């Protein structure tokens, strides 16, 4: 891969990551929110960005971080994702406890809450699978399929969650980020042949 091509890929990715964050930072809603609420919102936006990075790293699509390096970074990005979600939910809890309790108990009046909570538990489950990969002693194929299944729930749930919210994210950059996260997830599932009888990498 040429250096120019690598540069363009990274520059494109940086743009896709930075634009939604800058657009949210320009939201008029911020002036009427307390710092904790603002931080909670941006933790959610960061989590959406990480959802785009995760499949790109798992598939080794990014120049310089393919193969094992990509997977190792996928692990660290996963840890960041879990942290971002904890900050997101924790910050919202501090801002308005009853709204978060309603969401966690699936009795919220806002439909996007349930999608977010489902995605959150799927993230925790996927992280649990990764953390206890060796002690769980699942076959590599089963482990991969379970982890992928959870990833699909995470991406689908988070995208619906984000799109239904009227918040600080700007509409078009939010939709673009969501579309790219879905596209990257579908691509890596197809490329790695997760549901083929023999996935790539197995002999």
């Amino acid at each position, binding site marked *: 891969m040429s250096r120019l091509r690598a540069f363009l890929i990274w520059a494109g990715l940086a743009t896709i990551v930075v634009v939604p964050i800058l657009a949210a930072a320009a939201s008029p809603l911020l002036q*009427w*929110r307390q710092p904790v609420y603002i931080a909670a919102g941006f933790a959610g936006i960061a989590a959406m960005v990480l959802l785009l990075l995760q499949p790109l790293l798992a598939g080794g699509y990014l120049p310089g971080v393919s193969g094992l390096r990509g997977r190792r970074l996928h692990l660290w990005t996963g840890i960041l994702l879990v942290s971002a979600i904890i900050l997101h939910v924790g910050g919202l809890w501090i*801002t*308005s406890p*009853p709204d978060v309790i309603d969401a966690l108990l699936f009795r919220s*009046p806002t439909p996007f*809450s349930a999608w977010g909570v489902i995605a959150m538990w799927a993230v925790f489950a996927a992280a649990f699978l990764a953390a206890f990969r060796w002690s769980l002693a699942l076959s590599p194929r089963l482990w991969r399929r379970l982890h992928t299944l959870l990833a699909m729930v995470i991406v689908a749930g988070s995208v619906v969650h984000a799109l239904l919210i009227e*918040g600080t994210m700007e509409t078009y950059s939010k939709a673009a980020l969501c579309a790219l996260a879905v596209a990257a997830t579908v691509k890596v599932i197809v490329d790695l042949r997760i549901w083929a009888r023999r996935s790539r990498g197995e002999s």
Partner: protein
Amino acid sequence: MTTGLMTRRTLLLTGSAFLVTGVSGWSVPARSNGLAPTPSMRGGSNNYRPGAPIVDRIGGGGFWMTGTVRRAGDGAPLAGQRIQIWAHTTEGHERDQRSHGATLTDANGVFRLEMPQIVPAFGQPHGHLAYDSGEFETVFLRPVMKSSADTSLEAHFVLQPA
């Protein structure tokens, strides 16, 4: 001479009488000709602060919360009913004391309270209203604005005697 045994006739009579009263007894007395009470909405009581003071206006105003209060059944307008209102606005969070206020309905059961502009919070631009004075059953409402650019919001109460 009577025996303790049931004849076939009495069995049929008592049996059919039981069926008639039993079946009709299950049906709820007709309320359909009256106005049904408004149920509380999900999340309506979130960040409620009991005893919000009656005010002319919450904060600087610019946004109108309006609605009606009527009695369940006959739909008669209820005057002098205290409605409490709070929301996330340009001047404060739902939890802030200054975001809460109350008003009374007029002779036509209509209430109108000016308050700061409601802004989207927790994903939707919405307001909260409460009736909890005790004479009628408590109701919490959580109406959502069609657009966050709206400068008014309506909510209607049909109350059932407590």
